[in-house]
């Protein structure tokens, strides 16, 4: 059939996936520490188009090159934008936000199915205390200090700008902050957690910690709306393209052959 039919059809599928990503951003517009995803498109590798059937026009008799063209597009990458979200003042001593360093994360120990602890990363610093007085996430996972779990007595404590957890004048521990030079190498895990990959490179933490603040989502609803309208209209134009190509085919099938 006509090549373009597949191109337009595939493009609609790709836009469908982009819509999934946009909808996920919108759903997380109020999620603490959420980082928005953006879709990067790529085209398929180009193909060389040749003139096969009018070879007679070419002196050599070989099909002539028309040029190169790409036939489809596809999603190449979901790029996560790690720009800092707005800091909201909550006044709670167990809320901490990382300020001024987009690649820095709190470290959380999460047991896997074999009860082996793995380190996950999060920007959501709305922590809690558990029954043993440990600083934990709302799912009960331990927040790591440089000496392991941070055990406190009650919720009266101070977290200094460089992460020292001070209670009754004594430095209990220092919050473990991991900085990545390339945060885009991290993978989202869900439940506000991220995992590092082999490509992740450590860096030096340059920001400060702010107690009594939480970092909101960095999703901007205006951008998302515009993105969504774009998706919808591009989807529509691809549909129209399919319809036009279908009418060409209709003509070819029904009218060219009419006697």
């Amino acid at each position: 059939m006509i090549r373009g039919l597949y191109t337009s059809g595939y493009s609609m599928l790709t836009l469908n996936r982009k819509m999934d990503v946009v909808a996920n951003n919108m759903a997380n517009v109020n999620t603490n520490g959420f980082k928005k995803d953006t879709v990067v498109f790529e085209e398929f590798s180009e193909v060389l188009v040749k003139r096969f059937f009018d070879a007679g026009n070419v002196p050599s008799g070989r099909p002539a090159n028309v040029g190169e063209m790409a036939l489809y597009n596809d999603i190449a990458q979901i790029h996560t934008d790690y720009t800092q979200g707005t800091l909201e003042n909550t006044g709670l001593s167990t809320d901490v936000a990382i300020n001024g360093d987009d690649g820095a994360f709190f470290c959380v120990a999460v047991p896997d199915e074999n009860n082996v602890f793995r380190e996950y990363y999060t920007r959501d610093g709305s922590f809690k205390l558990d029954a043993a007085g440990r600083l934990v996430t709302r799912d009960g996972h331990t927040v790591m200090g440089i000496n392991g779990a941070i055990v406190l007595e009650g919720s009266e404590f101070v977290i200094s700008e460089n992460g020292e957890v001070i209670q009754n004048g004594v430095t209990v521990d220092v919050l473990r902050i991991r900085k990545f030079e390339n945060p885009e190498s991290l993978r989202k895990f869900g439940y506000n957690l991220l995992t590092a990959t082999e490509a992740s490179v450590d860096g030096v933490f340059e920001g400060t910690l702010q107690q009594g603040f939480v970092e909101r989502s960095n999703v901007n609803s205006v951008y998302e709306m515009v993105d969504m309208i774009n998706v919808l209209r591009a989807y529509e134009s691809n549909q129209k393209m399919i319809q036009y190509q279908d009418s060409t085919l209709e003509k070819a099938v029904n009218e060219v052959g009419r006697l």
Partner: protein
Amino acid sequence: MMRSMWTAASGMKAMQFNIDTISNNLANVSTTAYKKEKAEFEDLLYVTMQNAYSGVDAQRPVNLQVGHGVVARATSRDFTAGNLEQTGNKLDMAIQGDGFFAVRGPDGNIYYTRDGSFKVSMTEFGKMLATSKGYPVLDQDGFEIFFDGDMEDYDIQPSGEITYRDPETDISLPTGQSIGIFKFDNPMGLEAVGGNLYRSNTATGEPILNIDTENPSIVRTGFLESSNVQIVEEMVRLITAQRAYELNSKAIVTSDEMLQIANNIRR
């Protein structure tokens, strides 16, 4: 059908929950010693999308993950103190600090409250200190507090100690009982049961007697603690929640339109 529809639906559900929480805060703006709650959200699991020619490359340098929306994960209660409101009533008590009064509920279990609008209830054993609902207020050892004689002669000291002033000699003597005030290592873990009462559980840790703590709470008689809900803060939250709800509904409409467009490819 489209994943984006379910994703957006999860967003709408979460925002509905958010509005539920906010309206409960707003409804309790005048409830004595009410502690505001805040809904907290987390993103749902991510899956890696199949790229048309990704094949088996497990270690892509860039990611290709799409999330499935959001889930309301917790409501965290903010136990910061509300304003103290003067009532002049001797049996109204407010706690300055982070302690709780202990009350025995009708099921015999001990509940904790910050609402100190106590009354005197007439029982077969005499006058008993009770909450507005008639639940006995407990002393430091978990016993009911009874009074003999004229209520005018009893005083409650800032430490919670109950003293009796002899009307003839005008000398104050301790009765040996004091208002039981308890603290928790993790008050956020307290479970609200309604009626301004909270229940302790494994998450809160064992109740600690006030006098055993480093910064003991102080009982202020003649005051009541007002709700710590800040209307402005709740209104801002309400607006963001409503707009987020709207935003997600727009995503559903758009997904629906896309499906319609797909259906109309064949004229």
